[in-house]
């Protein structure tokens, strides 16, 4: 069974049609990229999957269940985690605390008023794992708001991973990053996909990143799906080249 099935979703903002009748299917373990020029509707598409926005029409099925009208936290509980195009973290808390909250909530402790020594130890150990995976171990006790843009993004991705998601939605994880940081994040995403078999949907505008990572690519332009296929097929697709690659190259 497909992990995620988006069926003919549209989003209208007044007279603007931001997403126009788009469908997408993601298989377990797949890394799917969504690309398209600015304003194509990529983020809006994500917002509907994660429940940040309600779709104007269409349906979202996750693991066989229609989740179209569930509120966001419930979709998280079903296993959908996301990051945002503009980093969303807890700036005045340390990296460790940011991750700790994510781990605790994911473990179902959000209403707990007390923690046994054992549980406390387990939570802390898991936080250390995440710190190391994200390359954040040496900054663990710094406030996230004081870190570089790249480290803030890594923190956000690690928070999403702390939820042990069944589907990870990443909205332009390399936006605004230098080459080195872009490389590191790309390596991390590759690892999550190849080694840890995470199912990921990735929004990107940086073509280099996408063509190396993705199993399949969906191209959006002006709210419509322009093409879908393997990186090779997309690279060879003339409509895409005209509408997007051409523009990007120009």
């Amino acid at each position, binding site marked *: 069974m497909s992990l995620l099935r988006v069926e003919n979703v549209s989003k209208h903002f007044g007279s603007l049609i931001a997403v126009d009748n788009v469908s997408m299917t993601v298989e377990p373990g797949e890394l799917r990229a969504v690309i398209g020029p600015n304003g194509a509707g990529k983020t809006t598409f994500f917002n509907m999957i*994660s429940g*940040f926005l309600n779709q104007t029409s269409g349906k979202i099925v996750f693991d066989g269940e229609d989740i179209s009208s569930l509120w*966001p*936290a419930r979709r*998280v*509980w079903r296993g959908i*985690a*996301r990051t*945002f195009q503009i980093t*969303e*973290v*807890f*700036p*005045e*808390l340390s990296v460790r*605390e940011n991750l*700790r*909250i*994510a781990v*605790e*909530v*994911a473990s179902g*402790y*959000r*209403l*707990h*008023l*007390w*923690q046994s020594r054992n549980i406390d130890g387990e939570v802390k150990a898991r936080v250390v794992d995440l710190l190391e995976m994200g390359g954040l171990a040496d900054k663990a006790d710094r406030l996230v708001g004081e870190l570089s843009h790249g480290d803030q993004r890594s923190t*956000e991705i690690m*928070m999403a991973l702390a*939820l042990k998601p069944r589907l990870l939605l990443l909205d332009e994880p390399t936006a605004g990053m230098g080459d080195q940081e872009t490389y590191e994040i790309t390596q991390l995403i590759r690892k999550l996909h190849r080694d840890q078999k995470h199912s990921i949907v990735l929004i990107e505008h940086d073509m280099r990143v996408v063509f190396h990572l993705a199993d399949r690519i969906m191209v959006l332009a002006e709210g419509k799906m322009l093409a879908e296929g393997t990186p090779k097929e997309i690279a060879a697709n003339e409509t895409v080249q005209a509408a997007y690659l051409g523009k990007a190259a120009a």
Partner: protein
Amino acid sequence: METLNRQTANIIVWLLLLAMPFWIKALGGYTELCTQVLVYALAAMALNFLLGFTGVLSFGHAAYFGLGAYGVAMTIKYLVASTPLALLVGIVVGTIAAAIIGWLIVNLRGVYFAMVTIAFGQVFYFITFRWNNVTGGDDGLTGWSRVPIDLGFTRIDILHNPTAFYYVVLAIFAVAVGIMAFLLRSPFGRTLLAIRENERRARFLGIPVERHIWLSFLISCLFVSLAGGLYALLNNFVDPRALRWDMSGNFVIIAVLGGMRSFWGPMIGAAIFVVLQDYVSSMTENWMSFLGLFFVLIVLFFPRGVLGILRRKSLS
């Protein structure tokens, strides 16, 4: 190192509070002033549970403060001559009201939340103001007083012995503040910090934000009604001003003045507030405008409050 500092700070605070009735006299104060500091500190720390540690501004906490106060006064006057029972009734009344109103407003944010809390607060003000024959209306509820506490083996005469009353209030204060500190250090408490820091991130970690804000509001109002009950006991009197909007404003001022990001901040704010109120009001009727001015200056120049200034000093 940091936990050591925090422990030292805690010990100093509790020693100061334990000895307050003695050193306040050296400074020209009196015991009731100490009790007043505790009551305002409890109210402001309870407000700060919501404001400083959940990031939600309520401008109507006097409603629950006042309900606690009237709950205590009316229980003693009309129902039963017992201080503990009266406090219990005050807390229950205030918390039930908070549960219902909180549930109605928990979807609002920022200024809208603050404005609606004021509106609900004023509703309770007008009820106590108008419902003359039960609440005493504008004149307040008189003809009752706090009742000595009977522990079986001994009797604490909180009515005639202000020092005994101070220490009873301090014990209640300690329990209340201890519970709040405990909650804030729990996983639940950390979800509140998460909401304060970034509601969107909190929601997309799977925290049902509205429910948690509702719970925080409830806890905050529970302790504010307790403070209100103690306030009524302190004065042996209650009138509608206990739940008017400017009382809500006082709590916000105290919390912000002391520093709403720190646990003890509002306590310092309360001390400054009570002392200023006592001294300035003996000179001028309009002392509120002095305090208002002071408050505006503090917020403008030191958004982290008095404790924030001291912290910065000690760091540099």
